[in-house]
């Protein structure tokens, strides 16, 4: 990727309105902003209104070019729908993308009058947007206000030219514009074979619904996409997840046809590079992908979010989680005992799917925190261990509840490991009620937990062990008069969701697998209506 100070390569593209946009080498008459984007990237959609704002502020003086990495039709749809108010050009063969080499979208390059890159911004970051706006306006200009309801920062999606960055035998299926694969083969069973026995080879060790042509056809009818369209290549074997293969696995898991609406974005999400399903599938750790559902889809498809939310309570939860696991093993190849050699495993590998109890959540639900509208349904994935319960029935104050949770958080991964780890805190409605009564907002809960979850330094006196080798990286703080290492690197490592029934003061913490860019990052994808 081009960096600040690099000479901006020259190029010429026809804008979608017919005008020409040219960057010549050397000095420019004025500074210009290039915005690389994709039409299906949630972070790009988040950034567009802010860049519109900049475009309006700069008026004619502003020279902003959106460079779409997608074909004309989806680009025109996004321009109309978002709407995009600045000029847009198509980078049909991704040649300009390769010249500037953004690693993700959106990426902004501000090119100064000397023809060099003055600023770059990868993903969404309000502070950087304001810096770019100020540099272009030549005076302080704030286009992205803090706390306006959007997240302060959000990672982007991988740049189109890198999406299919696989080589060798599967290279031909990795072309993003050739998303077609062969149809699934058919298997004829005569009367002498029990279909339930035969299908035991197709998934988890519990009986599955035989994926007959008729049942799969009903799934396909509920999905607007063609059966041979490849949604993703599933690591670690990079098997092609076509709509038809997803449908066959959904039938086996017991899904209703309308679940295809959720499964398609879920398969995209699980193959998002940031989530790193390759590592999650191959690790010996406990991690399994936890699916968290938000928005109106919960009611529409009957997802349970209240009592027994982690249990066998609703067909929607159980079958969606199971379908994901069947897709991962049947198409990705991570079968237990073969590629998946997890030491102890996780009961969630049968099915691990919850919905947020938004009705009992007085704060912004998870998907709104991730930058989506409340009425937008989403799926979020987190590579997590099994839930670890926190019973706290005696606490009268919110702070006491959070203290109890912080003590469970301290044990995530391994007690003395204080870096590269994250956690989900699942707050039950009764605990939330007390916290809300005491005036806690969600960010205050997060910060309290961050500041109060620590491992006393004296616990590092009993010799070397997991976590003790990294103490130089740890942050120190005094908690209740005791010098401690803070468990987490940053408050954002603690994700909060409200779920469970209204009776019982039981919350839970779910430890992560290796977290961050070196491990797995939580991803949220929108579910289309």
């Amino acid at each position, binding site marked *: 990727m081009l960096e600040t100070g690099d000479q901006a390569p020259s190029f010429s593209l026809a804008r979608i309105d017919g005008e020409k946009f040219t960057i010549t080498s050397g000095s420019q008459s004025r500074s210009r902003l290039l915005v690389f984007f994709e039409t299906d990237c949630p972070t790009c959609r988040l950034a567009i209104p802010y860049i519109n704002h900049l475009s309006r502020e700069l008026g004619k003086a502003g020279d902003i070019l959106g460079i779409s990495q997608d074909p004309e039709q989806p680009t025109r749809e996004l321009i109309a729908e978002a709407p995009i108010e600045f000029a847009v050009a198509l980078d049909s063969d991704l040649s300009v993308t390769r010249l500037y080499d953004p690693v993700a979208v959106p990426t902004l390059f501000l090119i100064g009058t000397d023809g060099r890159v003055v600023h770059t911004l990868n993903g969404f970051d309000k502070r950087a947007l304001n810096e770019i706006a100020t540099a272009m306006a030549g005076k302080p200009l704030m286009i992205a206000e803090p706390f306006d309801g959007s997240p302060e920062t959000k990672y982007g999606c991988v740049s189109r030219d890198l999406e299919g960055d696989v080589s*060798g*035998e*599967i290279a031909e*299926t990795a072309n993003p514009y050739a998303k077609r*694969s*062969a149809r*699934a*083969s*058919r*298997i*004829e*069973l*005569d*009367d002498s074979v029990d*279909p339930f026995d*035969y*299908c035991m080879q*197709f*998934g988890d060790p519990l009986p599955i619904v*035989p*994926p*007959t*042509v008729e049942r*799969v056809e009903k799934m396909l009818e509920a999905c607007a996409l063609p059966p041979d369209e490849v949604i993703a*290549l*599933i690591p670690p*074997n*990079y*098997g*092609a997840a076509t709509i*038809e*293969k997803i*449908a*066959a*696995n959904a*039938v*086996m898991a017991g899904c209703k046809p309308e679940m295809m609406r959720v499964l398609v974005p879920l398969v995209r999400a699980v193959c998002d590079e940031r989530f*790193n399903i*390759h*590592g999650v599938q191959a*690790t010996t750790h406990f991690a399994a992908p936890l699916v968290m559902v938000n928005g109106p889809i919960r009611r529409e498809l009957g997802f349970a979010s209240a009592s027994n939310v982690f249990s066998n309570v609703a067909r929607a939860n159980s079958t969606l989680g199971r379908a994901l696991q*069947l897709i991962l093993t*049947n*198409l*990705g*190849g991570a079968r237990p005992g073969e590629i998946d050699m997890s030491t102890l495993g996780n009961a969630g590998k049968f099915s691990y799917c919850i919905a947020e109890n938004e009705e009992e959540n007085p704060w912004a639900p998870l998907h709104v925190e991730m930058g989506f509208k409340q009425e937008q349904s989403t799926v979020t994935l987190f590579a997590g261990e099994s839930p670890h319960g926190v019973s706290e029935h005696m606490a009268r104050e919110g702070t006491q509840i959070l203290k109890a949770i912080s003590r469970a958080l301290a044990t995530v991964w391994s007690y003395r490991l204080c870096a590269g780890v994250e956690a989900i805190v699942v707050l039950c409605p009764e605990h939330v009620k007390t916290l809300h009564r005491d005036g806690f907002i969600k960010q205050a809960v997060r910060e309290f937990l961050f500041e109060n979850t620590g491992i006393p330094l004296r616990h590092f006196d009993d010799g070397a062990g997991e976590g003790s*080798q990294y103490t130089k990286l740890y942050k120190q703080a005094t908690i209740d008069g005791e010098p401690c290492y803070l468990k987490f690197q940053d408050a954002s490592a603690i994700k909060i969701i409200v779920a469970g029934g209204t009776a019982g003061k039981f919350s839970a913490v779910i430890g992560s*697998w*290796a977290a961050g860019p*070196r*491990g*797995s990052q939580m991803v949220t994808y929108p579910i289309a209506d």
Partner: protein
Amino acid sequence: MPITLVNPLDETHRPPSAAAPRLESLAGKTIGLLDISKPGGNVFLDHLERLLKQRYGVADVVRAMKPTFTKPAPDSVIAKFIDAKCDAVIEALAD
């Protein structure tokens, strides 16, 4: 009544590829050692490097490390072995 199933398993076509030719001997060869960056990997590879040189007469050992054990090796790491013209590479997992 006979039924027809849709095959739910991976059927992605993968042409077979041949394994690399095997070395007759390690003597005088350049061997790459890939540390996948798990704790203890360097201890194991240091020992392996000594053995390769002392016992098997390996001429040169090239070391490289993945930035994280959770993901496949990036091209830049593999390029280090290719640029050094390694005759063989040993990948070490440790914990």
